[in-house]
């Protein structure tokens, strides 16, 4: 690949990179716009409680909120660490 090709290809990717980043960000911001404001705090406190009993990391828990015409759903997802099976 010549030097010229290198600059060409890096240029081609800059607009598509921008688009990709925007799509992810905008989707995230749209979904978090309608979320109740207590959500981050709830997530933090839940994590503290769970950590008392199970050794999980920061990202082991996710709380999501969904809303349609007739109901609101609060979804709580906890990923427990894999069981460490003893070697025979």
């Amino acid at each position: 690949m010549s030097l010229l090709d290198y600059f060409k290809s890096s240029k081609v990717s800059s607009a598509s990179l921008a688009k990709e980043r925007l799509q992810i960000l905008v989707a995230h911001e749209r979904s978090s716009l309608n979320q109740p404001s207590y959500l981050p705090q709830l997530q933090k406190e839940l994590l503290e409680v769970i950590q008392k009993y199970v050794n999980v990391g920061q990202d082991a828990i996710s709380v999501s909120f969904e809303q349609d015409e007739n109901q609101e759903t609060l979804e709580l997802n906890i990923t427990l660490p894999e069981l460490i099976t003893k070697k025979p």
Partner: protein
Amino acid sequence: MARIIVVTSGKGGVGKTTTSAAIAMGLAKKGHKTAVIDFDVGLRNLDLIMGCERRVVYDFVNVINGEATLNQALIRDKNCNLLYILPASQTRDKDALSQEGVGRILDELKKDFKYIVCDSPAGIEKGAHLAMYFADDAFVVTNPEVSSVRDSDRMLGILASKSYRAEQNLEPIKEYLLLTRYSPERVKLGEMLSVEDVQDILSLHLLGVIPESKSVLNASNSGTPVILDEVSDAGQAYGDIVARYLGENRPHRFIDDKKGFFRKFFGSKQ
């Protein structure tokens, strides 16, 4: 029925004031009595772009406070007698505009004008909120650039939830995309987001694309809205936009790199 158009974006410096001046002039030139209001309290600029800065006596805040009548404050445009400008106040008091006051003045204007164009300040603070609150239509001015697109999306969320129409459960504000400062050459090189890219993300009805153009600076230097420069690309782009808004069917222009063809054959002189 009168219609209130807000020209908004979230981000600053994308071309709201340029657009407000151009479309207000375009609507008036098409025979519709139009008022254009500068909502940028403390940073009055529309008067300069319209070329009436030396004729400002009273402003928007004076009218709200009853220190002047609407007729005293409205400045008739020098190029078109169906166009009037209501300048912003230069006060540093951020609370000079009130929702009640703005609503009262807009109601009064609606009796006499067909279109009322509100030039929004940047940001999502009080001034920007009041500029869009009573709107029927929103012209979302966006540059093909990440931060501008993101801010436009934020603004769409606000238009859909924090406006009078939203609060009263009326038909929502009609939103239109105006993509400005577009460079087809740079899009072709993959350096700039394309019209399709921006539409994919914002899913808005495209009213028009305004190219990056030297004519915009020339127009602001002389205080005449760029739409009056009928030979310029930006002037024609704004002309198309006004016509489309009024229901005319005009094909989109200024999206493709036309010069590219000639350059390929004759080479660039630069």
